[in-house]
């Protein structure tokens, strides 16, 4: 026999899970430029492959690990990351990390880029792949060469010095949920219990767990 309430609870549960997936999915893409979100045809995105731990973009820490995706304005950018290789499983997993690498790459509008790293013969090899063409993105030397011969095609790209590149957007707190755990003390005595030792708590004293909506 089917309880009609079960369907209702199941719907609520599925709805909550889907909402959570949508929220987590949307949180994975971060636009790293000022102003309103632009269509993807006007920007490019970069993410890390499973063997890469992203540390910073244009010298600003992002550390989305291997999960974050970041939208960037077209032009040269700097990525700092580590290569990582895991072996084993769960409690027996061992992770080997490389030193930090910094790569510059040219972002073209509408393109997705992926930071890649592989460990070959005890030496890490890193590169940035343009997923649209499945070829390497233009690197530091390519960008410098294009700039010298004025073949970048856009004056705004030439104006940007990747060695001093700074994101146009800085991280700002106070947006989104915030979770609190704390302890409050104060107030007049509300309850007194007389036992072997006298014990009690004031009216304002509590252990609190809070969730901030905005």
């Amino acid at each position, binding site marked *: 026999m089917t309880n009609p309430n079960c369907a209702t609870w199941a719907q609520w549960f599925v709805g909550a899970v889907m909402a959570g997936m949508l929220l987590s999915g949307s949180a994975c893409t971060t636009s790293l430029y000022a102003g309103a979100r632009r269509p993807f045809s006007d920007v490019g995105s970069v993410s890390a492959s499973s063997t890469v731990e992203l540390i910073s973009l244009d010298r600003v820490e992002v550390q989305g690990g291997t999960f*974050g995706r970041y939208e960037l304005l077209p032009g040269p950018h700097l990525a700092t990351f580590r290569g990582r290789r895991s072996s084993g499983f769960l409690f027996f997993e061992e992770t080997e990390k490389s030193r930090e690498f910094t790569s510059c790459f040219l972002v073209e509008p509408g393109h997705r880029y992926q930071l890649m790293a592989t460990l070959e013969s005890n030496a890490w090899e890193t590169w940035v792949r343009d997923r649209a063409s499945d070829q390497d993105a233009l690197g530091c030397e390519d960008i410098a060469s294009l700039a010298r011969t004025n073949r970048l095609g856009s004056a705004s790209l030439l104006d940007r010095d990747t060695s001093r590149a700074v994101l146009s957007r800085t991280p700002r707190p106070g947006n989104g949920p915030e979770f609190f755990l704390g302890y409050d003390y104060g107030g007049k005595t509300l309850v007194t219990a007389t036992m072997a030792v006298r014990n*009690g708590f004031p009216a304002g004293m509590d252990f609190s767990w809070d969730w*901030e909506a905005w």
Partner: protein
Amino acid sequence: MTPLWFDDTMGIGIAARIGVKFDQVGGSNASVQKVSFPFSAGVRSYVRVDPKWYLGLGGGTNKELAPSLSSSGDLQGGATFTSPWGGYGEFGVVNFSNWHTVFGITLRYTRMSLNYGGSAIRADNVGLTFSYQPNP
């Protein structure tokens, strides 16, 4: 929500918070528990003091929802209080561990009371909280 920013150095916004507070006292054969659900809403500002550090200042109004006492063991009974609107002020610091991870420490003074049987019991308190923001 902190929509108003001045040159990435100071932001002003609004915040609402809901939570649960719990305390208990007891012995070997009985115990008394107090539970309430504090709600607060107000304004909050952030001042950037370092690329990774912000000072936070805030204040507003608060109310304890459904504050009650209950007992267990050899002690039976309970009590339900009412709590009028009060106020709070807070000061703290937040740190960007990275873009998506923000940790904070906040000291909050809350002015409030619990009413029972026509009398008010002052319950002003100071709270220290640790917070985590998954910055989007």
